[in-house]
């Protein structure tokens, strides 16, 4: 028992370790370029993290329930393309709910395959990554989508507008995070998500309908993806077919960085938000000190491995793996 108490402290320290490393980054960046801590810059970082962040909120549900979602990137491309296309055909008022409905259908399909048919989520969502990409290309005919009349529509408000002096993407991100955070932490559904991810068999033996919980998590993820697609479309008012390509990995990186275990059962929305912001600030800091965007890839690599390593090292009590 004391063993675990000790490792709790270790886990806390490991978490702190990442925060300390993050603090060092912040100080370093600030020294290198004082603009880093400028309120405008900070606002800019949060704003540009919003799309990734919104997607990460949904994936947090999926990961806590013990599954993976690698399809969010291509699903986001799909949402973006669909809403841009429908905007000119149906007008924004109908286009947005129609896009949400279509994206939720995709989420429901994945939820059905993983939840009810109990198929391996890694492979299902890998397959869906490819399938949805194909679907998007078929839908768009391989062409970029643009809104014809960019001035004559209120559609840009989601990506570019301000409300109460706050950019709308940030507002939406914060509201959605608060809402989903409360759902996860305070409602019976949230409790069931943790139970299913922590021990799915025991959850079933306690009368929880596991399939339904997993299904709902994928719906939540699809809802977040649709929101992200809306933000993306509204920000750029036009898009390529591949706008979300590779985002699934950045999203997963943010969720892992936040401390959710890929085995399921642990993580919180708040931690995910921290993970998203850490990624955003590091990316921004690297750009501000004049490094190219791709340096960020390498830095993210190192940070992810360190974060997960310290976390499991704290749990097992030794830094190095005992594998011979």
């Amino acid at each position, binding site marked *: 028992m004391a063993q675990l108490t000790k490792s709790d402290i270790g886990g806390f320290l490991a978490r702190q370790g990442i925060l300390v490393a993050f603090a060092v980054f912040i100080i370093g960046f600030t020294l290198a370029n004082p603009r880093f801590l400028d309120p405008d810059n900070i606002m800019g970082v949060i704003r540009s993290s919003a799309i990734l962040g919104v997607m990460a909120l949904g994936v947090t549900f999926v990961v806590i329930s013990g599954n993976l979602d690698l399809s969010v990137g291509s699903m986001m491309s799909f949402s973006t393309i669909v809403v841009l296309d429908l905007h000119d055909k149906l007008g924004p008022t109908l286009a947005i709910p129609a896009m949400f409905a279509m994206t939720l259908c995709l989420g429901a399909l994945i939820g059905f395959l993983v939840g009810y048919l109990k198929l391996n989520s*890694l492979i299902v969502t890998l397959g869906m*990554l*490819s399938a949805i990409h194909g679907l998007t290309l*078929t839908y768009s005919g391989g062409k970029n989508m643009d809104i014809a009349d960019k001035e004559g529509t209120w559609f840009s408000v989601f990506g570019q507008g301000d409300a109460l002096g706050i950019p709308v993407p940030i507002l939406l991100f914060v509201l959605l995070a608060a809402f989903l955070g409360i759902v996860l932490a305070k409602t019976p559904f949230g409790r069931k998500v943790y139970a299913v991810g922590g021990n799915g068999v025991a959850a079933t033996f306690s009368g929880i309908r596991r399939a339904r919980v997993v299904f709902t998590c994928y719906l939540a993820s699809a809802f977040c993806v649709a929101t992200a697609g809306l933000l993306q479309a509204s920000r750029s008012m036009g898009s390529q077919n591949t706008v979300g390509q590779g985002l699934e*990995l950045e999203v997963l990186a943010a969720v892992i960085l936040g401390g959710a275990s890929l085995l399921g059962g642990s993580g919180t929305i708040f931690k995910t938000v921290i993970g998203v912001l850490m990624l955003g600030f590091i990316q921004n800091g690297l750009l501000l000190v004049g490094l190219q965007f791709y340096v960020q890839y390498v830095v993210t690599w190192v940070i992810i491995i360190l974060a*997960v390593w310290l976390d499991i090292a704290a749990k097992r009590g030794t830094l190095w793996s005992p594998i011979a």
Partner: protein
Amino acid sequence: MQAGTLSTFLKRGAIWGFILFELIFFSVAGAFLSLSDKAFMDLDNMLRLFKQSAPIGIIAMGMTIIMINGNIDLSVGATFALCAIVLLDSLTWPIFAGLGDWVIPVSWALALLTGVLLGAINGLIVWKTGVDAFIVTLGSMLGYRGLVFMYNGEQPTSHLNWTLVDFAETQFLGLHTATWFLLAVTLVIWFLMTRTIHGRNAYAIGDNREAAVNAGIRVGPHMMINFMIIGFLAALSAVVFYSESGSVNPNDGELYELWIITAVVLGGTKLTGGAGSVISTFGGVLAIQLLRKGLGHIGADTSTVNLVIGLILIAVLYLDRQLNRKGAEELKI
């Protein structure tokens, strides 16, 4: 006992049945739709199919070992690109200028060494930190891709060496150089997995890791060797492919891991490790390439290929699950 053997047989045979189905389907559908005046099962077409299977196929052999071993490697696409850059760039390094065409083996060796090194980094992290291979290679997928960009920014790296191009375009006994490499790799890895101690241990570790540890198999170094093998094969694949094409974009190899994992899963390798066959993976690689070509043959575009591959992957997973069901006696959890 019979049931187990039968289902194994069905699973082993399934991929070849699927290939046969594809051949018939695309031949018939192609003839009906008459979009192309050439028959689908044209010899040249089939030979090209083998050649085009090579880049993915060579890496898929490595992925088979990795997955039998109970791990996964998501970084192969980035490794592929980085090794390609090392190959093409080193051909032009001034220090090798005096070597003439002897620069080719040197560059090849450098590229292969890079692959082995990148694999070793993955393997060492998996071994020493105990972090799951999925996360480790997810990270290095980003990291290695970053290195690719750092090498030459967003510019393509190009260098055509005509001796190399000639070599790559040679057809020996009708088969292209790339095809020979694919066949040789398949044979070697098949030998490794079925005949050698290392290969048999790979199965044992994937099947029951604790038992392997207790039996004194050194799991850490073993896994590291496998990551080095897949790194080597990713490099070999790059060497074979870019010797001919001579130009690499920093985004090359993206989504390779998807295609490769699809091929391996189609070939029936168990996701949890411990079971799988190199020959079936070979079938999986051919099946995917046939599908791409076949869909092209009947007039579908790349978008349909993506859609179909994704759906087939899920369908295979579903079928596999149904085959392994214990019927009414199964516990409903």
